[in-house]
């Protein structure tokens, strides 16, 4: 799938707009997309994550409130066209506004959007549909010859209600404001077995670059590996020791760092304690004490600025007082 001239070349990496810059435009987004006065307008709510910048919109006064299927498209193709027209209009209205600002949010609704599915959504117990759900995906140019574009594991879900009005939207897509060329890392294996894709972090996780990865395998068994020098991911390995469970941050060999580390956790069985910082600057910690922990690890590449977050649930059973050593 990949030609030799690609392997030693460079590949596109996209710099994501900071969440703060998206939040700063939230009222303009609310107006342009949903004709709202601000992010909260009656029963309409637009939420923009301050961590990731992802968008969520709900019209609580209309979603799941439909009492008939009149005023709705009757077929999926027509509903798809309604959704596409809405996105085109929202993009056009917002871009007309934001062309006057310093921050480039032109990819808030990406120009490379492709339709995946449109289906009817209904309440249980009701014979008529409430609204139409349309799902859109994105593929981005790779800057290499084969493949010349790769899918992003992000999506925009748009729910269109009666009279061509949106009743809900949820997007895991984050806009970029520039792209750059980065070192292309060769796939370690038979090239035909790997699929190139751009990885978008979880909806509430930090991310600075949209970078390419290889995926091999199936849904339940598979492997990620970096396809560029910006393609950072983090893992946690464990070892049971006499004093607790030792946790070690792992990063891909092909992304050399150096790295910054920070560890935190909250307990499933002690919610009152809340989220606590465990350690910073250490690749390894030992989790002690008895309890059910959700451990959080942040890793940042000091060379590229790429950041990755990962989490693990650990059921620790060492009768110690101290939480970490």
């Amino acid at each position: 799938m990949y030609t030799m001239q690609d392997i030693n070349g460079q590949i596109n990496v996209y710099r994501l707009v900071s969440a703060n810059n998206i939040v700063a435009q939230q009222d303009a987004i609310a107006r342009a997309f949903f004709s709202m006065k601000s992010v909260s307008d009656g029963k309409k709510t637009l939420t923009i994550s301050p961590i990731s910048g992802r968008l969520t919109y709900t019209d609580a006064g209309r979603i799941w409130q439909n009492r008939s299927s009149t005023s709705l498209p009757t077929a999926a193709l027509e509903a798809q066209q309604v959704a596409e027209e809405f996105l085109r209009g929202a993009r056009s209205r917002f871009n007309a506004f934001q062309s006057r600002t310093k921050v480039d949010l032109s990819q808030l609704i990406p120009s490379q959007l492709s339709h995946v599915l449109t289906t009817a959504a209904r309440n249980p117990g009701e014979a008529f549909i409430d609204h139409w759900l349309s799902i859109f995906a994105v593929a981005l140019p790779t800057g290499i010859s084969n493949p010349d574009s790769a899918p992003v594991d992000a999506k925009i879900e748009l729910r269109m209600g009666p009279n061509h009005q949106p009743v809900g939207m949820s997007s895991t897509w984050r806009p970029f404001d520039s792209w750059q060329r980065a070192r292309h890392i060769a796939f370690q294996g038979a090239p035909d077995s790997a699929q190139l894709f751009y990885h978008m972090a979880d909806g509430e996780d930090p991310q600075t670059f949209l970078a390419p990865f290889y995926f091999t395998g199936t849904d339940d068994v598979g492997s990620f590996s970096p396809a560029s020098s910006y393609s950072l991911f983090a893992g946690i390995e464990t070892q049971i020791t006499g004093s607790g469970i030792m946790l070690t941050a792992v990063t891909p060999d092909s992304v050399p760092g150096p790295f910054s580390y920070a560890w935190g956790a909250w307990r499933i069985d002690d919610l009152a304690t809340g989220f606590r910082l465990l350690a910073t600057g250490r690749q390894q910690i030992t989790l002690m004490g008895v309890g059910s922990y959700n451990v959080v690890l942040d890793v940042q590449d000091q060379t590229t600025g790429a950041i990755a977050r990962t989490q693990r649930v650990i059921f620790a059973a060492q009768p110690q007082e101290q939480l970490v050593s």
Partner: protein
Amino acid sequence: MSKVDPISHDDWTYTRVLRERDAAGGLVLQDVRHQQYLLAKDMRVTRLWAGSLIAGKPILKDFQLGSAALPLSITTGPIPLPTEQGLIAPYHVPFKESANFEMTDPVLGLDTGSQPLSVQQDYLFTDYGKDPPHEPAGVIDAVRIYPLLSFRYPASTAGARLLDYIRVDYRLALTVEQFVGDATNVRKGTEFQDQIGVFRDGEVLKFPYGIDEVFDAGEKPVKWELLGEGLDWGTKSQWDNIHQWAVGKTLPETPGASHAAHIHWRWGTPATEKTDYFPPKPKAGPQFAGVGGVAGAPQIDPRIPQQRLLFAITSFTPTPGAGPKAWSADENGSTAHFEELFIKARGSAPLDISSGTGLVVWISIEARRKPSRDPWQGTFFAHGIFFAHEVVSLGRLARNVGKVESPLSKGTVNSQIWWRPKRPENLP
């Protein structure tokens, strides 16, 4: 008395019903949706049982949350967990709905010398994503909800009857949304047609493997209503997990159903083992170990390692009179012997549910300890429920991965009986 509030917080929406006194039941969540995808019509704890079963004549008491015997003291929510910063980037903490219940009388009876029991009910809601990983490859997006029930019992005085047994019964009317494309010819009043599968993970996996090797046992889909055992006092038993999905053109992929409710209380050892050969499992590891980080151990609160988990899967028809009254939500059905609630109401022949119907999952978790005067506390349902709502798995589309959508019938019996594969021998 019931207090009903519509809630919208983060990406979750639900109706919070606080039931107490003559309408006891505690904190009930209804019409639970995440990003508008339906997960459950009703989630609740039907009953809490407490006992002194080992030393002396057995005592077993049952309580409904919010009743006069276990009254509500405090309720809070939705509120985010307390947090401190310091990670490299801000962390979005989960949020919770909580209700506390405090007994005023001794839990085992007035003349037992026992102490009142404190109970806290929490629903904990997390964010959608791949982390923490939900399966060994770490490629399935999902959100987690933890219907937690915690208890706290103080030290006992000399001569008092000793509390050595706590049981919590859940009624989970999970409902996974059925998308039918253009076909909207569903009869009014019908529920989504859901199917369900139960599985027990294999303990040894050698490449190459297929679905038959991944699981030691499985019913996909479950053919008739079912009673099963999930844990046998802290060790694995007949089943490790339950998956519920809506009827579609095909069965969902297994493992890894991308639009389904998943309840895993134990993973087989291979889920913790990274593999060097193709295909590797990059997220295999501690996420799938159990108490003490031990592979194959149950994912339960280490403070109450002695747990037995029984469950029932029944059909659910909301039309009044259409199903056993004892199974309707506000009955808070629960019997001293878990199985009685189902066999007495339905009879000895469970219904065929294989082609899809409304469903209810009933889970009963017991904890026991040796008689002790020490304080005792623990939390039930620490493994939680995860809900993947990818109508179309973009990961699957993006990565052109294979499909494992075949049915499975292994390690069970093809008979219209409640307990499958069989009734556990150590049940009373």
